């Protein structure tokens, strides 16, 4: 079978799944989600899975593991039992605040905790559908798919074709949400390859402030595919801190797309921690649609064996006087591979743009590999854009200096790698979150 045939076979498989899925949702065809799904799935069918040949954006990351597996919709299969103890282990349990737990993309109310913080609405799509909360139902149908570009991002369209459950977060005007909102997406163990489609919609109103954590966890060594999309809208002067923790199973593929639209004077930052998973693709595509916006993207990967992480970002500066800053760091062992593609677009109107991009890697093995693809597309003349990429090994002089003070070689290496990642961790305000992520990082070294 050639690639084109395989592609079309694959589409057939997903088409079949799509039909079964739609039929299973008895009576919900009237739901506004139905038309969203149909439209999105058409977009996916039109474009199919991107390959290195069909898309420059997928030059270094091949979705073959997905293409060759017939993934079944995990939500259809009987879910593996997950106890509250399991959840407490997987979640950042000590983080007080709202916690929504999804098993294979399906909301699990008994495992979740909603604290009703003032100015915050956290609902699952499934919960909302059953309720009479017209206000949030309208919010969902008004905003869902408003921010993600389904024509451009085919895999995000696939997610949208299967959208059924997910997390809706609304932060009211002027509200400062003190405790982080944690979304825990657990992939449970199945005997067959499975797929799930987590979805998040975040709407932050004027002058609101909140921290949102997306935490993806896998249990075992089963093959699965997490296909996740997050959309975030920041109204004027909204301030959102977002974290994404990836500890997927050893045979898991994770595709995550984060579409962000920012309004004037808003502040957005996201940090992704790619700690485990066989193949990870993180797409972040903020659109800076107002003046005096701040946008920060951070990423840290620690990979071993044949793990592969692709951080893909497109920052679109549409208006003047905005600042964007990207810092991606990776430590690569064994035969692991890191890819960074960072595009900065500066539109003709976006004068006085200040954009910084940096991508740094430490290779701990001769077989590890890093590819960087920075792209600047600048149509304004009064802008400051810098990008830089460094790839190196552990600094031997630094290593000797530490050892000459009595510190063991192993510990010295850990100290240097910790130092390498320090600016990513320093961005985390919450002490518990920072320590948890840093400790996990040290364990992986």
């Amino acid at each position: 079978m050639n690639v084109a045939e395989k592609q079309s076979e694959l589409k057939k498989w997903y088409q079949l799944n799509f039909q079964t899925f739609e039929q299973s949702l008895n009576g919900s065809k009237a739901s506004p989600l139905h038309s969203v799904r149909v439209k999105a799935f058409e977009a996916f069918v039109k474009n199919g899975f991107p390959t290195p040949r069909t898309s420059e954006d997928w030059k270094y990351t091949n979705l073959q593991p997905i293409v060759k597996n017939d993934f079944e919709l995990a939500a259809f299969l009987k879910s593996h039992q997950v106890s509250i103890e399991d959840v407490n282990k997987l979640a950042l349990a000590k983080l007080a605040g709202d916690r929504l737990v999804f098993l294979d993309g399906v909301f699990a109310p008994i495992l979740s905790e909603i604290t009703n913080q003032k100015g915050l609405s956290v609902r699952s799509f499934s919960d909302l559908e059953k309720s009479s909360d017209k206000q949030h139902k309208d919010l969902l149908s008004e905003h869902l798919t408003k921010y993600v570009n389904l024509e451009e991002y085919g895999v995000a369209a696939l997610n949208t074709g299967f959208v059924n459950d997910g997390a809706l977060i609304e932060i009211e005007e002027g509200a400062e949400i003190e405790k982080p909102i944690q979304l825990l997406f657990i992939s449970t163990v199945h005997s067959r390859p499975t797929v799930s489609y987590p979805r998040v919609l975040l709407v932050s109103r004027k002058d609101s402030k909140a921290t949102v954590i997306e935490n993806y966890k896998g249990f075992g060594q089963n093959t699965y595919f997490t296909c996740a999309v997050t959309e975030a809208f920041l109204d004027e002067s909204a301030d959102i801190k977002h974290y994404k923790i990836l500890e997927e199973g050893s045979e898991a593929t994770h595709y995550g797309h984060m579409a962000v639209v920012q309004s004037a004077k808003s502040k957005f930052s996201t940090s992704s921690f790619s700690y485990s998973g066989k193949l990870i693709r993180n797409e972040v595509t903020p659109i800076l649609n107002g003046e005096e916006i701040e946008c920060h993207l951070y990423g840290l990967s620690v990979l071993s064996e044949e793990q592969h992480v692709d951080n893909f970002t497109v920052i679109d500066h549409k208006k003047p006087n905005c600042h964007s800053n990207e810092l991606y760091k990776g430590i690569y062992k064994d035969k692991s591979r890191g890819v960074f593609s960072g595009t900065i677009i500066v539109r003709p109107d976006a004068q006085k743009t200040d954009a910084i991009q940096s991508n740094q890697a430490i290779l701990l093995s001769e077989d590890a590999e890093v590819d960087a693809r920075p792209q600047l597309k600048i149509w304004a003349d009064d802008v400051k854009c810098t990008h830089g990429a460094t790839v190196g090994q552990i600094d031997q002089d630094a290593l000797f200096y530490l050892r000459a003070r009595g510190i063991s070689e192993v510990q010295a290496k850990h100290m240097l790698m910790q130092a390498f990642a320090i600016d990513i961790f320093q961005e985390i305000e919450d002490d518990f979150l920072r320590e948890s992520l840093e400790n996990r990082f040290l364990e992986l070294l």
Partner: protein
Amino acid sequence: MMLKISDLHVEIEGKKILKGLNLEIKPGETHAIMGPNGSGKSTLANILAGRDGYEVTKGEVIFEGKDLLDMDPEERAREGVFLAFQYPVELPGVMGSYFLRNAFNAVREHRGQEPMKPREFNQLIKEKAELLQLNEELIKRSVNEGFSGGEKKRNEIFQMAILDPKLCVLDETDSGLDIDALQIVSNGVNTLKKEDPRKSFIVVTHYQRLLNYIVPDFVHVLVDGKIVKSGDKDLALHLEEQGYSWVNDNLSA
């Protein structure tokens, strides 16, 4: 005997640097190693600390009855050999206090001592920082990052004071120091000598100037990988007046 170097031959990438060096150091002695550029002074300092890239082709180095060359750098440090670097390395992101605590406890553990209580350790840091006139805030920041030349050298001696080694090797500690910094560094070294009269020092230097402050018991002149002349502190003065060519002339005479 604390240190015994016998017939030491060392090469770097096939190039012979040390060509049969002999040196014996007893506890409490201070030895100055002087010599022109390229004579092998820094090689000697680095080989004692265990830096990579040197090949010992002949000879041995015995430290307190143990084969020093057989040990990893960290083992040597724990056994009590300390190298004050000619070019201290900047470690961005490695916080000074964290670094010192780890180093200090590694050395203590090796000596069979319990880790020191944080309060006691902070007191120790305070005391030694004062001795070297180092700002405590500077010590807490990334190690050596953005330090001036003088601050880096003082930081080396400060670390030496904290780790309390038996044998201190000072590699061109005077290079790049102004007279004030030189006095602070020397004063630090002399205080350590007074506190522990059994500490030994190898002071590697190109100039005699430092030896006005840190007075050696012995001065050795290293030329072309060998010690060609040894004497007391007056030898350093002769060298200062006559230059290294004087030694060469004397040898050939």
